[in-house]
């Protein structure tokens, strides 16, 4: 981790987009030969819906990973957020804004707790966020057996199902959030400080960066993104779902998307654009396999192999660069 980059977007086109283009080209060809259509309206829409949910979580995850931390509690934050939102709305359009506000506040609170545990009590981020995740899991397991509450119809109609041409509103939301995070990382002091901390916390501290404050903020933003993803899922499902986060493997998959997107797991290197590339790559593979009617379990095997292979290729590149 030598040589800290203060420009997170130094490599604007990470390898993930090359991979994405290849996957889409090959996928299109194979699906075409198989007699199907990869880019018809309904597959594109469902691909973008899948990408929107995972994308929101992964964009937040990028922030903490860039800062050298990690958040394993996002799946539970997401589930909790669907419940808080749906139960507060209880099917009433009038309660829409308070419900969204409450869901985001609760999420931010969990992020704050994560951040304080990591910075003030100096607990390893893996353990701290795993512990917080388990606390939330107990609360959810104890309080809910199944779906609860009901999402306001106006939210279901807009965020859940409305779209502009083939692009769902939720994907537009993802693009907006990604843009905001990209701007924050590349143009604000907070962003530069965060990347500096991820590169070398000691050097950052000695250069006058307030590490704790920056990391806590990153954790809060990460949890907010997970909370936003929860509100989106509540609008898709029409109710709060206590297991949606864990069943969707949002914790591990978001980390995988970040790493496939070219962000170093140890922090200090990478960016949010690559993460979205990683998310769309995972969603595209999903869509292609769906079109080919590949077995769901086989899909998971391939997914695991792709994640490992992608990171191995990055590692190889980094090694070659270090040698030359």
């Amino acid at each position: 981790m030598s040589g800290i980059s203060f420009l997170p977007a130094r490599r604007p086109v990470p390898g993930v987009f090359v991979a994405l283009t290849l996957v889409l080209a090959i996928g299109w060809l194979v699906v075409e030969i198989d007699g199907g259509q990869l880019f018809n309206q309904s597959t594109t829409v469902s691909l973008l819906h899948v990408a929107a949910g995972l994308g929101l979580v992964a964009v937040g995850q990028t922030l903490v990973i860039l800062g050298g931390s990690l958040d394993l509690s996002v799946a539970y934050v997401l589930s909790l957020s669907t419940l808080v939102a749906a139960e507060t709305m209880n099917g009433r359009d009038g309660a829409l804004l308070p419900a969204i506000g409450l869901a985001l506040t609760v999420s931010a609170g969990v992020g704050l707790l994560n951040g304080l545990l990591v910075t003030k009590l100096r607990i390893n981020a893996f353990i701290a966020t795993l512990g917080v995740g388990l606390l939330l899991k107990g609360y959810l397991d104890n309080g809910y057996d199944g779906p609860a509450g009901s999402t306001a119809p106006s939210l279901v109609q807009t965020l859940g199902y409305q779209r502009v041409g083939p692009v769902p509103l939720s994907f537009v939301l993802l693009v907006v959030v990604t843009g905001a995070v990209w701007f924050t990382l590349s143009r604000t002091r907070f962003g530069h400080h965060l990347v500096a901390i991820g590169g070398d916390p000691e050097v950052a501290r000695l250069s006058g960066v307030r590490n704790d404050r920056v990391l806590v903020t990153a954790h809060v933003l990460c949890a907010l993104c997970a909370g936003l993803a929860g509100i989106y899922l509540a609008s898709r499902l029409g109710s709060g779902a206590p297991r949606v986060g864990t069943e969707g493997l949002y914790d591990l998959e978001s980390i995988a998307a970040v790493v496939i997107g070219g962000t170093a797991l140890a922090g200090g290197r990478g960016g949010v654009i690559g993460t979205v590339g990683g998310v769309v790559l995972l969603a595209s593979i999903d869509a292609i396999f769906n079109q080919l009617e590949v077995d769901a379990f086989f899909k998971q095997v391939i997914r695991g192999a792709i994640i490992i292979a992608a990171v191995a290729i990055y590692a190889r590149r980094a090694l070659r660069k270090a040698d030359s």
Partner: protein
Amino acid sequence: MQTVQRAPMPLRILRSRAGGVLPILAILAVLLVLVAVRQPDFLAPPSLLSFLGRSAPIILLAAGQYFVIVSGEFDLSVGSLVTAQVVVAARLIDSDPSRTWPVVAVLLVGGAFVGLVNGLVTTRLRVPSFITTLGMFLILVGAVYLWSDGAPKGGLSEEFRRFGRRAFEDVPVLGRVPYALVVLLVVAALAVLLMRSDFGRTLVAVGDNPRTAELSGVPVWRTRTIAFVLSGLAAAVAAILLGGYSGVSFQAGAGLEFGAITAVVLGGVALGGGRGSVVGAMLGALTLELLFTLMNFYGVSGALRSTVQGAIILIAVAVSGLRFSSR
């Protein structure tokens, strides 16, 4: 993942002493007292021994996870490996007793192989172990569902299941000694011997500072790979015991990886490597199991298990962290 601060020599000795097994023994003692107050029968040899037998799988997994963690890596694949092994065993045995021993051998070789792949991908291809073993987790879960078309097939033979649920009957003084406990004691003894051997010291050195270890001529990649193989083997043994005790299901190993990591950290082992003992890790697992038993006795809902697990791990790590930083 914060960089581990390197302390100067005298401080490091203090630290290694602080990371010893005393704190976890203290917690264990407190829990035992609480149990004794509520349910004195529990401490009688028969129920205590069967408790130890029941806890054997998670203790074995904690020992396996310890090897990987002390060398500076993670193994998130053990839970899915246990599930895969149990389902594979049921299908291969297909209720035919004569296949028991060959299948046990297959499981051990399979566990070692998965560990070998984890280790080689992590060390030779330089993929962070978090990602390697996460990918392996997805692959194993997908593969096992795929292979069994979504529902476990076949069945375990009684010969296979006896490791997990039978016992030596009528042992003097002790009464009933579960086979699982004997397996546990043998593996625990082997683990302690291993950590006292040259290999054990090398393993800790690699986790403490891979660069220094490399420069002193230690083949770091080989040492770490062996740690992963040991973790895979431990998962195989745990799967044999668990399959026997609780039968075949796709949930057999669910969540065990985080359980094992919790136990190891609770036992005073530092994530990032180089600190802590294998006895501490195993005691951590025992403490966790005892805690869940205690919750049962006090009528706490099973759904709150994870909340307690989360709270315990946070408190334990925070307390040990504060102790270090006050030095």
